[in-house]
C-alpha cells in the first residue's frame, strides 16, 4: 500500500494506471447499472476522466 502511495506521489506509471483503470471500470459500471439514475448521469464524465487520465499517465516513467 505504501509502495502504491509513494508511486502516486512520485508520478509513476503503474499506480496511476491502476487509478485510471478503476475510474474507467467504475464509469462503465455506472453507465450500465440498473440501480440509480444519477449513476447513469455521471457515468460519462467519470469514464472520460479515467480515459484521459489513462492516456496522460501512460507517458509517465515506470
Amino acid at each position: 500500500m505504501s509502495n502504491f502511495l509513494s508511486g502516486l506521489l512520485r508520478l509513476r506509471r503503474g499506480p496511476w494506471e491502476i487509478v485510471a483503470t478503476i475510474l474507467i471500470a467504475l464509469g462503465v459500471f455506472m453507465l450500465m447499472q440498473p440501480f440509480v439514475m444519477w449513476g447513469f448521469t455521471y457515468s460519462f464524465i467519470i469514464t472520460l476522466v479515467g480515459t484521459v487520465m489513462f492516456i496522460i499517465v501512460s507517458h509517465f516513467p515506470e
Partner: protein
Amino acid sequence: MSETPMTRAASATPPSVARRIKGLSDRAIAWIFVGPTIFLLLAINIFPLIWTVRLSFTDYKANRAGREIKNVGFRNYERILNDSDIWLNMQATAHFLFWTIFFQVLIGFTLAYLINKKFKGNDLWTTIIVLPMMLSPAVVGNFWKFLYQPQIGLFNYIVAFFTGKDPSSFEMLGSVDLAPWSIVIVDTWMWTPFVMLICLAGLRSIPDYIYEAAEIDRASKLRQFFTITIPMVLPFLMLAVLFRGIENFKMFDLVVQLTGGGPGSTTELTSINLKREAFEKWRTGYASAYAIILFVTVFGLASIYVKALNKVKER
C-alpha cells in the same frame, strides 16, 4: 556474390523509378510508403471523429442540410444522460454483455480444457467447434430465426422434448422475457469458439515441467488446476473477456437480424438505438453526442485491453 532479397528488389526496380528516388533519404522513402496510409487514416477515421465531436454540440439534422445549425452546448449530452429510455437500453446492453461473457468464458474454458487433453480426433473436433465463428452474423441471425420458429423451429422442439411442453406454447423471439435470452444464446453459440481458442493458447503455453514438479510434490489434480492452470490462463481469459466485452458493446448485425430490437425495446441495444436516432429520427447532433459517449466508453475499455495485452506479451 550471393543474391539477397534487397539486391534482387534493387535490380528489379525500373531505371526511371530508380533515377527518381536516387538521392532521397531513408526517412523520405519511409514517408512515401507510410504517407497514403496516414492520409487514409486521417480522412476515414480522425476527421469524422473530430467532425462528430463538433456536431455533438449542435442541433444539426442530416436530412435538412440547408437548415441553420445552432450551437446547443452540452444540451445533447445532458438529455442523453438524463433519458430513462436510453438508461433502459444500456441495461439491455449490460444484460447481453454480462451473460454472453459469462457463458462464453465458462463454456469456452471448459471446451479448451477438454480439447487440450490429447485424444483421437482432437484436431477434427477443434475444427468443428470453431465453425460457427467463421459464419457471417447475418447468416447466423437468419438461420437462428428459423430455429426459433414456434411451429417449425428445431430449438422449440428440443426444449419441448426435455421439458414436456408444447413446442408452440412459447416464442423465443416474440416474448418479452425470452427475447433477451434468445440473443444471448445465439451470440454464445457463435463466439464461444473464439474464447476457446484464446484459452487453448493459454493452456498450451503452460510448460509441462511445472505440472511434473507439482506431481513430485504430490499435489492433487484439483490443486494443480487451481494453483497452476487457472493463474497461468487468467491473463488470457482476461483478454478474452475484454475483447468480447468491447465487441458485444458494439453488437448490431446479429440482433437486428434476430429481433430488430423488439419486442417493444427489450432487445434494443445501444448501437441499434443509436442507428434509430441517427438514420430514422435524423437527430444527427443528438446521435453524435450519443456516439461520443459510446466511443469514450469503448476507448476506455480498449485502453485497459491494450494494457492487458502487453502484460500477456511480457509473460
